[in-house]
């Protein structure tokens, strides 16, 4: 499993597009929104509110990369080759997912370092926030595995690259108050995990762990459910091979 997860890690980090979007794009957003904040003060764009949101938004790219990698491996027979080796189904699932947890941590760290340079005060709660990014990362990485196991690479690009990033942007309350969209959208947003992931990370940074808990349970619930679905879908396509 270690060899396979090492390979997943290298495949992701050696793709310049992945690096650009996964690590670069959230930083650009952070910089731009901070610039707006410095000219027209908006409470949502204050670094202690904005940065946790950006770290969560960055995770939507993890879904895209995980989905594309799994889908490509299926398409190129690379997985077929590995199915004929003594690797167990759990080796595949963990081998795909674990490297994305490391990437999620690195992504969050990088965002907070940038935010620190821009003026964010680094506290122990920020470190907790970096560590606890693993909770929403479970949801995003397993969603990638689910999409990669069921869709083609092009479909993954469309669904995760366009739809998910938009959902994650519009229904997460990162850059505007979701109530501005009306009660229907607010209700939909509260049922989905995106806004809870952002509120969870914001509460951790603020040190409000009692506020963070219900949001964490919401995101964790989604994470566990999607992981179960992803494992089922992966095993199903493995059997169909």
């Amino acid at each position: 499993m270690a060899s396979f997860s090492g390979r997943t890690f290298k495949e992701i980090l050696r793709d310049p597009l992945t690096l650009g979007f996964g690590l670069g794009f959230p930083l650009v957003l952070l910089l731009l929104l901070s610039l707006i904040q410095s000219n027209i003060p908006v409470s949502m764009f204050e670094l202690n509110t904005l940065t946790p949101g950006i770290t969560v938004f960055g995770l939507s790219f993890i879904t895209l990369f995980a989905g594309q990698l799994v889908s490509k491996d299926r398409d190129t027979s690379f997985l077929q080759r590995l199915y004929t080796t003594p690797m167990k189904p759990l080796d595949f699932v963990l081998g795909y997912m674990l490297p994305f947890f490391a990437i999620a941590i690195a992504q969050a760290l990088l965002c907070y370092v940038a935010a620190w340079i821009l003026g964010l005060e680094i506290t122990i709660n920020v470190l907790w926030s970096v560590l606890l990014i693993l909770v929403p990362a479970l949801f995003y990485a397993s969603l990638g595995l689910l999409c990669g196991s069921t869709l083609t690479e092009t479909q993954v690009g469309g669904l995760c690259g366009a739809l998910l990033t938009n959902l994650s942007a519009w229904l997460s309350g990162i850059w505007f108050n979701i109530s501005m969209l009306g009660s229907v959208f607010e209700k939909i947003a509260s049922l989905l995990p995106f806004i809870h992931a952002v509120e969870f990370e914001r509460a951790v940074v603020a040190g409000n762990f009692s506020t963070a808990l219900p949001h964490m349970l919401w995101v964790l619930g989604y994470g566990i459910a999607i992981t179960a679905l992803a494992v089922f879908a992966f095993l199903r396509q493995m059997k169909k091979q």
Partner: protein
Amino acid sequence: MKGMPDMTTAIETKNLTKDYKDVRAVDSLNLTIYQGELFSLLGVNGAGKTTTIKMLSCVSSPTCGDAFVNGMSVKSRPTNVKKIIAVSPQQSAIARNLSVKENLKLMCGVHGFDKEKTSRKVRESLGSFGLSQVAARKAAKLSGGWQRRLSLAMALISEPKILFLDEPTLGLDVIARSELWETIRELKSKMTIVLTTHYMEEAEALSDRIGIMKEGRLVFCGTAVEMKAKSGKDNIESAFIEIVKNASKGTSKEAKA
């Protein structure tokens, strides 16, 4: 049978059958392949060759019947079967962003080799497949011929007793194909090889025996000479066409030599 080292059974299928929804991809296949033999499976698209390889390599479960690889059932002992086989799939199944050396290391890792064995096997594979000069190059940057050679080296690094080659030269130019033929010839008699191909001259040049499948059934099994004699044709391609055209469903024959 040229170059057949012994008559010990390596693979035996018993009424091996695979259904996909309402399509029977492989239909009651009875086939025996001997140790050290290079056996080619021929057939038009959809004949059931790749499905057969998938069942023999434990990627796909038979709907009914069974196959035995070195005496072990693919249905009841797939984990043991996987320890002694290797597959080089139709496409170059390689990790594209990893270097040649890293791809070989990856295969050692998934087979559970320790550090010392990994280092030795990688060194040997680079040498024997002439890959040393491109060892540090990303797999995605290699030409089709080099990628196929790497794919084969990855399959062989676990020292399999049985090797499945699914259309190994598909899409390669003449030079790359001829080089790969040489590599496959060198492997002959060191292990049992089951090869599927659409190139008749490839089957004739490399195989000890040839099996022809049509609509999931085995319609011929024998040497290239026997194939030509049976069809009354003097070249392998015409012989193949003749046999496939004349074969009707229900003519499956026991393929034991």
